[in-house]
């Protein structure tokens, strides 16, 4: 059964989009988003978004990776199967540093990518906005504001009127299953 999932409005350029974001935020909407083909500077402030917590995720994972790297080598070289190689000490940490560093970077990179996926709720194969035909232009050269049905202030006609009043065009109810 088809039902309304949200409202979509188009704006002419990045400057209008940023102004619209401020107005939508000030009007008290929370579950909205501004779509553009490239990131727009100043948009985070305009939308009232907090800083991305990704740095903490990456930081924690790099430390984990480095600790794991050093501990793993210590365990192999000094505990699990100690071998004397050219008279070097079992736990020759200087020699282990490179692998530790590699794992530091590797874990951090996985943290950055998968942390980003997690925060962005990716991957997902479908999203209500894909029901809109004009939305396909967003990855090319169009700028949209979308307000979701879940928003506390959402009201089919009032939200549409509001978007029109702040300069949105091509306003559309996103309808899908």
């Amino acid at each position, binding site marked *: 059964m088809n039902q309304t999932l949200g409202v979509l409005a188009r704006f002419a350029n*990045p*400057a*209008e*989009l940023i102004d619209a*974001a401020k107005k939508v935020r000030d009007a008290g909407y929370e579950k909205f*988003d501004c*779509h*553009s*083909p*490239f*990131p*727009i*500077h*100043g948009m*985070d402030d305009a*939308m009232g*978004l907090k800083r*991305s917590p*990704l*740095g903490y995720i*990456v930081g924690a994972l*790099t430390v984990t990776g480095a600790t794991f790297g050093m501990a793993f*080598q210590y365990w*192999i*070289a000094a505990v699990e*199967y100690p*071998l004397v*190689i050219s008279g*070097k000490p079992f736990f020759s940490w200087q*020699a*282990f540093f*490179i*692998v530790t*560093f*590699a*794992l530091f*970077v*590797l874990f*951090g*990179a*996985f*943290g*950055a*990518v998968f*942390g*980003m*996926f997690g925060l*962005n709720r*990716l*991957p*997902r*194969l*479908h*999203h209500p906005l894909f029901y809109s035909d004009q939305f*396909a*232009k*967003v*990855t*090319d*050269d169009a700028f949209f504001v979308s307000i979701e049905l879940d928003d506390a202030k959402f009201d089919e006609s009032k939200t549409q009127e509001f978007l029109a009043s702040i300069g949105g065009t091509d306003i559309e109810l996103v309808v899908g299953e």
Partner: protein
Amino acid sequence: MAVSGLMLLLGAIGWLVWEGTGVWGLNNPVGWGWAIVNFVFWVGIGHAGTLISAILFLLRQQWRTAINRFAEAMTIFAVITALVFPGIHVGRIWLAYYMFPIPNQMLIWPNFRSPLLWDIFAVGTYFTVSTLFWYVGLIPDLATLRDRATKVRKKVLGFFALGWRGGNRQWQHYEKAYLMLAGLATPLVLSVHSVVATDFATSLVPGWHTTIFPPYFVAGAVFSGFGMVLTLALIARKIYGLEDIITINHLEKMNKIILVTGSMVGYAYMTEFFIAWYSQNDFEVFAFINRAFGPYAWAYWIMFLCNVITPQIFWFKKLRRSIPVMFVASIFVNIGMWFERFVITVTSLSRDYLPSSWDYFSPSIWDILTFVGSFGLFFTFFLLFLRFLPMVALSEVKGVMPESDPHYYHHKEKEVGGAK
């Protein structure tokens, strides 16, 4: 042509596996021949991609957007090609897993104090991080392609675009992730070739045992990588008519980097000589005199000519901005850097401490076929990439256009934004 090169590589590897490393021209002092030369050569090629995408990103060099995508692709394919060589050089390639950090059938673990194991981690991490970096950069562009495609193509692209919607909530985390990856990749670039250099430098072979190796290898890697980027960029630009995106200014900037790193490499060559003389270590002194005037003098002077003399032409603005000149120069750089690795590896090994064990190394036909074939592998991947994926980072190029800056509309009379 690329595919036939690939076939050649597979054939040469097949014969190697069947017959053993005896089919290569290796002899007793020279136990490391073309396999390691090619490995270091290809890993070095890869460096420019990461340098462009990570270091120039952190330095806010917006001109990188025109070339970063295919430079990154080049990195990945070059590293894949490079990884073939340590894989096959062990001869019994079904035992290559000995190099991984897992216990063998006698429950003995690999020796983490060995530089070769560091290599596995350094290059493996490098490959993984470069691939992630490349893919993350591709996501918005895949979404662009998805929105224009139809049918099966749309489904496939939609799968890989992961449902990207260009929402600012997504961009926010995305930009942060990209920044983090760049931050992690930057020290990685510098470390990978340093580790490769350490493979040499931790040995006691005269001519290898020098502390200058890591920075010298990194400079050489960036140098050779830019040579390859330039070669590929000039061809792609011509064939696909990208003159407006990869402008002559971009090419000139790359030439400046080639000039800088080429001069650094030349400086390193001279420092090696100086330190050999200054240390008054007989073996070290001999190794370098032998390099320049011994049986491999021809290789040494090819290297010197291509790597030190060729880039000096870029002091002249006219030559720096001339397409034919830079194309020829970039080919010379590629040749010269291959010879650099050859000179380092072979001259030192063929004449080490005991004159009784000296021998002259000449490659066999299988060495040559494997090397030629490796270009086939590289170009097969690269051409497939050009065919199916956006070779210029669409969203990033849009992002540096003046029209992308909100202030552009607020003050229309004066142009703002960094890009031309």
